[in-house]
């Protein structure tokens, strides 16, 4: 299932959901061979216990595993175009990853599991990404782990970036 590409209604709904709910994303689906070849990083500011997402690059869309362009939205390199949300998933365990993969974890994400979001600003993709600031920053405990979910205008995808707090 796909969403209408580039509809203003979707963008408005997505932006309105920031910091409140991402329930709208629950209805999404994605292709079996979605590109998840992202690069990027999660960093922790030890002074403020703030996790920041940065350095995105990679493919997004209905690419084949080799990354060739077979679909509509699949930039070869650089920032994925038209990203609407980037979410941090807390308490991401290896067991969940092994049973369904991060891609499926992202599809199954629900508002109560989402702790941070980033929304593209400035219109049609490749905008500025603000760092997601975790609510309850003081509660980052050893053993907490986080992963990324990325949503573009068609699909929801998972990023292989994961971190653990010690």
């Amino acid at each position, binding site marked *: 299932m796909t969403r209408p590409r580039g509809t203003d209604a979707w963008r408005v709904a997505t932006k309105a959901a920031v910091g409140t709910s991402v329930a709208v994303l629950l209805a999404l689906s994605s292709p079996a061979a979605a590109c998840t070849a992202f690069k990027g990083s999660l960093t922790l500011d030890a002074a403020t216990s703030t996790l920041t997402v940065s350095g995105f690059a990679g493919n997004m869309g209905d690419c084949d595993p080799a990354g060739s362009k077979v679909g509509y939205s699949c930039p070869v390199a650089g920032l994925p175009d038209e990203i609407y949300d980037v979410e941090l998933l807390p308490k991401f365990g290896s067991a969940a990853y092994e049973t369904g993969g991060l891609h499926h974890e992202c599809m199954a994400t629900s508002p109560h599991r989402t702790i941070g979001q980033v929304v593209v600003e400035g219109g049609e993709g490749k905008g500025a990404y603000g760092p997601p600031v975790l609510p309850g920053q003081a509660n980052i405990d050893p053993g907490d782990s986080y992963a990324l979910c990325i949503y573009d205008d068609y699909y929801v995808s998972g990023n292989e970036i994961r971190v653990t707090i*010690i």
Partner: protein
Amino acid sequence: MLDDHYEFLSRVPSGRVVFVVYNAGHSLHGLDLFPLPPGVVSIVAQLRGSQRHIVAPYAGTVPLLPGQQGTFAVDLQPGTTYAMVSFIRDPSDGSSQALKGLAAQFTTTARRP
């Protein structure tokens, strides 16, 4: 793995190392392996301290029931300190097993030619 500590070889070589992890305790335990970040001397002190660090998951086991065994292989760098930690929480009191002894570290030795 026992309930309150890891038992492992005193000397861990660098290079490809296969970890065979056996839960000899009475509770669910796990093992996450990662290199200690710069500036962190002791994993035990780090876990009990107040300033958090971020590490990339390197390798580990899924949670193992008593009597279960898990295996993974990693390529360890020479002269590097790695930590082994179980972040599983005790269901009885919610405390982390990492603070109950299941946190240890080792520094790799050079592999003999």
